[in-house]
């Protein structure tokens, strides 16, 4: 715990009242930061778990897609496959936005697959068609993973920033205010003791003077 005190111009009662008010504000601020930290940490842990599961799923999916594509290339002539793929390619758009979580602006990505191009299944190489669908799903997973990993970075930064500030309040500012309050109280007590001693002394002097006057 820090043993330092804050700089105060004059040790007065007014200063003590102000310090007490500051202490209340600092404690409340510390509570806000702690609450934010709890919420952000929850978000960070959930995001990390989600990232791991999505990444595993994506790896599985990509292997599956590759296998299907290879099967298609082996079964059909390259020219037929390429012409089919060129007809099958549909326009996809990526919706880029943001979502807010506990004061942190996180990315929001969503793939809009759009309308499917109508196909005749008689001339469609089945494994190629399957691999295209598989890659569409993989694309959604990739987008989701990008969103999660970017969010992890942002939430992680915010967690470290909030933690640093909460620690600064807990170990630096609040102890200093407490020390200063303690110092002021000691100062007032000392002043009171001095006053008492002075009053006693004055009383003694006055009594001595009074007895001297009566003797005369």
């Amino acid at each position, binding site marked *: 715990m820090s043993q330092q005190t804050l700089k105060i111009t004059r040790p007065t009662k007014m200063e003590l009242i102000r310090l007490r008010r500051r202490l209340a504000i600092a404690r409340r601020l510390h509570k806000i930061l702690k609450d934010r930290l709890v919420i952000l940490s929850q978000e960070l842990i959930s995001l990390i778990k989600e990232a791991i599961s999505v990444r595993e799923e994506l790896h599985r999916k990509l292997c599956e897609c590759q296998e299907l594509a290879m099967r298609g290339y082996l079964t059909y002539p390259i020219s037929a496959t390429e012409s089919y793929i060129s007809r099958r390619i549909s326009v996809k758009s990526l919706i880029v936005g943001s979502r807010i979580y506990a*004061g942190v602006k996180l990315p929001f990505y969503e793939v809009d697959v759009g309308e499917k191009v109508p196909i005749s299944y008689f001339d469609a190489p089945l494994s190629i068609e399957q691999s295209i669908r598989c890659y569409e799903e993989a694309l959604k997973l990739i987008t989701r993973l990008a969103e999660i990993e970017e969010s992890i970075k942002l939430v992680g930064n915010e967690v470290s920033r909030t933690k640093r500030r909460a620690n600064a309040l807990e170990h630096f500012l609040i102890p200093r205010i407490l020390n200063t309050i303690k110092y002021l109280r000691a100062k007032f007590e000392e002043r009171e003791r001095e006053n008492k001693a002075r009053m006693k002394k004055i009383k003694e002097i006055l009594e001595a003077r009074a007895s001297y006057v009566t003797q005369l």
Partner: protein
Amino acid sequence: MSLNFNFDDYLEKYLTYELRIVNRYLPMKRKKLRELLIEEHPHVVCSDGSIHMFRKDELNTLLKYVSDEELNNLALPIILELRVDMDVTTALVREKYAVSVISKILGIERTNNELYLYPPHLSELRRKVGTLIQYFISTSEIRG
């Protein structure tokens, strides 16, 4: 040894800054669930001008828990008020329809028109309807 900075100013500025960070993303105007379901890209505009988007899957998930009356009246995002005066992190839901829907999502019984949520509840809510909730820190409580 003493410090050479104006502590009062620093603390006041810092407090204001922290509250601004957390509360600046609150929506300027909330939208009803029915309205959002029709939108192509469901979103609300926040008070700092940024956009908060809702996930369509989550809106559809919410549909399972709402009645017709709630569908027309539930305003999104649901505002969870963080209570600074409590020891444990606690969020309070005050709105009638939000209380009803959240208690259904979490499977908890509600006793009155307010609902207190604790970290495990918040975590579950985040998992199920993460984009449909927003946190709010009341400034009056802090300055009080």
